[in-house]
């Protein structure tokens, strides 16, 4: 493998180029910087998961670079409101929820206490949730005994500054920019491989491997086949509206995802702006009405609606062309997995880089891993609908739809006795699954006998200590805005 061409010049194309150059410096990497289309969600959604922090470290970029030079801010999680009418909102953070008591995991104790009477909601046992609700932030403590030692955080990206920084960084690592418009591909008649990419100036760019970062249209990968696995049965939103409003002085590190009769909307505050979005089903709400709804919350007109077709290509990598991001998988931004899936695919591409012949068995392994990962992401998103409780027709339908087999298995096991089955290539940690399952009111029917050894009073004692440990410390933490200002001050010194 010598030459790799990346088609697409948004943050994704440049991130892929940077990782390839950094990890496999023997490769020549050329980027054709097509501007990303509006429906490429990995490029459009600024809220990201903690995996972005690992991705930066992996390619040799510090947290400070992203936070300072690209004006990113911190996000600790999401507060889900009205997904289950009659229950309070719940917070999903990337943190531990409680600590094990004895040999059984914490949530079993919580479920027993909840069944016996009252214990505060599950998210009251996540230190990061307490921090996020009060608008505060510190970096994870290095002392493992601190309650604030185990959480992870994502970033809220500035979608103008961030791609710029990534482009500069990839070029610094030796990626070559080749400006031009895309006209088509020339296929090898014998192998069906892409022989060259044809630009609008008539120039042909040959390469051993072509990386497609062109969004849902998948200009390259789509030239080989159009197979698509549709997920709209479980993920009903097929429209998306985005609107950016002015920033607030103290941006919250906690995003809000608010269920609506026709879908859900979100608010994500960051340093440079307050992002509003609305994902909905066109069958339930006209684009005009949806736009009026969002304007009512954001105070400004949203951008034109984006059509969303949720699902994935069964084979993101075929012959010598690999699709990344929305070209491979397209899901609504619920839980902010769009860029995460793209990063994960980049890591996998780097780790599994084959020879020029792109041997079928190596691609099989790559596609198998992608499939396992995206299916569980699909399941996690679909869970929010399957375990919802609202009266509108859309929501009733979602509750009645049989979930994908793997999600049905998870929900069945959990509902029975609070057990979570193990799956390979899981994006969300067990505590994330628990936060959503318990947050949406799915309480196990039985209490696992393994906690018999610990009497309920003893559980409550340990649980009270956890709550107090969190409550005592939170007020002393700096606000999110103070944290960012301190960081800038330190950098200026």
């Amino acid at each position, binding site marked *: 493998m010598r030459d790799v061409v990346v088609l697409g010049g948004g943050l994704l194309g440049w991130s892929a180029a940077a990782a390839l150059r950094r990890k496999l410096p023997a490769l020549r990497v050329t980027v054709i910087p097509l501007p990303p289309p509006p429906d490429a969600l990995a490029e459009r959604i600024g809220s990201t998961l903690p995996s972005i922090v690992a991705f930066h470290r992996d390619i040799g970029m510090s947290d400070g670079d992203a936070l300072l030079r690209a004006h990113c801010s911190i996000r600790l999680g999401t507060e889900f409101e009205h997904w289950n009418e009659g229950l309070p909102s719940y917070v999903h953070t990337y943190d531990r929820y409680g600590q094990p008591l004895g040999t059984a995991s914490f949530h079993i104790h919580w479920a027993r206490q909840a069944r016996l009477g009252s214990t505060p909601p599950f998210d009251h046992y996540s230190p990061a949730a307490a921090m996020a609700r009060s608008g505060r932030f510190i970096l994870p403590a290095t002392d493992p005994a601190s309650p604030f030692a185990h959480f992870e955080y994502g970033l809220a990206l500035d979608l103008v500054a961030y791609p710029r920084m990534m482009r500069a960084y990839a070029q610094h690592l030796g990626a070559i920019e080749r400006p031009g418009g895309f006209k088509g591909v020339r296929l090898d008649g014998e192998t069906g491989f892409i022989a060259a990419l044809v630009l609008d100036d008539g120039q042909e760019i040959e390469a051993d491997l072509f990386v497609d970062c062109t969004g849902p249209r998948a200009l390259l990968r789509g030239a080989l086949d159009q197979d698509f696995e549709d997920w709209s049965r479980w993920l009903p939103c097929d429209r998306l509206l985005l609107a950016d409003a002015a920033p607030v002085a103290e941006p919250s590190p906690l995003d809000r995802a608010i269920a609506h009769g026709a879908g859900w909307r979100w608010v994500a505050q960051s340093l440079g702006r307050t992002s509003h979005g609305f994902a909905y089903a066109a069958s339930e709400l006209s684009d005009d009405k949806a736009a009026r709804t969002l304007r009512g919350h954001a105070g400004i007109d949203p951008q034109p609606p984006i059509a969303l077709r949720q699902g994935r290509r069964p084979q993101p990598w075929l012959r010598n062309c690999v699709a990344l991001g929305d070209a491979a998988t397209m899901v609504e931004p619920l839980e902010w997995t769009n860029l995460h899936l793209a990063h994960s695919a980049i890591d996998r591409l780097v780790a599994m880089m084959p020879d020029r012949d792109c041997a079928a068995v*190596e691609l099989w*392994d790559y596609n198998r891993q992608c499939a396992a990962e995206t299916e569980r992401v699909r399941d996690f998103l679909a869970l929010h609908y399957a375990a919802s409780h609202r009266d509108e027709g859309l929501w009733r339908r979602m509750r009645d739809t049989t979930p994908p087999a793997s999600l049905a298995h998870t929900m069945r096991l959990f509902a029975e006795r609070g057990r979570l089955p*193990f799956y390979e290539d899981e994006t969300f940690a067990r505590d994330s699954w628990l936060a959503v399952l318990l947050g949406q009111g799915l309480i196990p029917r039985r209490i696992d006998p*393994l906690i018999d050894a610990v009497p309920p009073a003893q559980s409550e004692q340990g649980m009270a200590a956890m709550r107090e440990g969190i409550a005592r410390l939170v007020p002393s933490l700096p606000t999110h805005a103070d944290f960012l200002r301190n960081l800038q001050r330190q950098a200026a010194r």
Partner: protein
Amino acid sequence: MLARRVVIVGGGTAGWMTAAALTRLLPGRCAVHLVESEAIGIVGVGEATLPHIRAFNERLGIDEADFMAATRATFKLGIEFVDWGRIGDSYIHPFGTFGPGGAEVDFHQFWLRLKQQGIAVPDLDLFSMACTMGRMNRFALPSRDSRGLDSTFGYAYQFDATLYAPYLRRIAEEMGAKRTEGRIVTVHRDRETGDVTSVQLESGEKIEGDLFVDCSGFVSLLLDKTLGEPFEDWSKWLLNDRAAAMPCRTAGAVTPYTGVIAMPYGWRWRIPLQHRTGNGYVYSSQFLSDEDAAATLIAAVEGEPIAEPRVLRFKAGRRTRSWVRNCVGIGLASGFLEPLESTSIYLIQAAITALLELFPEKEISPVDRDEFNRLIDLEYDRIRDFLILHYHATERADTPYWDYVRTMQIPDTLAEKMELFRRRGRVVKYREGVFLDASWVAVYLGQRVIPQGHDLRADAPPAESLVAGMRNLAAEIQALAGAMEDHGAYLSRYCPMKDAA
């Protein structure tokens, strides 16, 4: 909550492991009643174990030295495979990593890269603590500080399985397990539901229960004989259906590893315990008679035989479901895989762990039962492929037996794994599963499945610094192992057996 009446049918290793775990870990949830017949006896050849057993013993509150003394146990750092790829070959499958472990790119990738560049590098064995300690016959417990190389190995035990069951029996009985001696003549079932309601002994005594655990060994009294659960036969890939077992006095070293020596029609184990060495010839009756197997074994063992060879019969495979109605099969009653990689006791443990986690109420939920069966299938299927690899990855052509296994059609799941390794040394990743990357790497390379390429990320560091780093690493491992005590000396200090055989 009423306690469930659990009846365990059979008192070998599986039966008493189950009884001890249930009484110790689910007190108050179940009343355990074990039925065994001393006339039937136990198979008890599974003398070598995997590191997982330590967690099992720990959960039961067992003191290691006490347990080792009682079962006349030795330490086990891995398995030495002799004559597998070719006659004359030897490699150790270690419990632990090659290199320091935990790196983004597996150590063997750098090693492969240098070799493919034509640079001389030491054998991969020399970068493994467990292999090096094994070859030097040394032992020490691994360090708990995960930063050092002396934390990069694990260990298991080689013990007398006929002593493990009585050891666990004491624990189970102390915790309230009831034991009844007798041979079961009738199994009674509910006419409507088909569930098993009781087992009746020769004496006429009836033992009733809510949940029945079938630990009856190959007989499979409940799963097979009573419920007729079908058996999935894997003998087209795993031909061996007999073992001749015979202990002898120890003549060579008490090695901290199990010996597995390929033979013309199967393989032979050598398991050194404190008081004797266990031996056995696992073979295929299609190719070898019992008499010839016994004669070969007698000629091959190193010390004076202590008993006559005893022949065991089996078939590789598993029951379609291990938990059917209110009967859970644990151990040989649910399936059999030859002890090539010491998985017998591991499979018992996996089933017990799953049963503890999915322990039913009075009404057994199909959710629990299905999940149990899914977990057990996963364990069996992964071990199956790993075992088949040992036979298929060979150049041996000295007998029709080896010709068959070398050229047989293997499961697709294994063919894909082997092809991936051949291309660039990639091991299909599972985060869970009994055998992790290093195990697969050891067997592939040990049996001459040589990759054509390597992970391209291994090209990043300059060759000179890699070579120097490897030299230092091998030297450090050598020094650490060299400073350790002799295995035999460690045993006689740490856990000497209480009386001689």
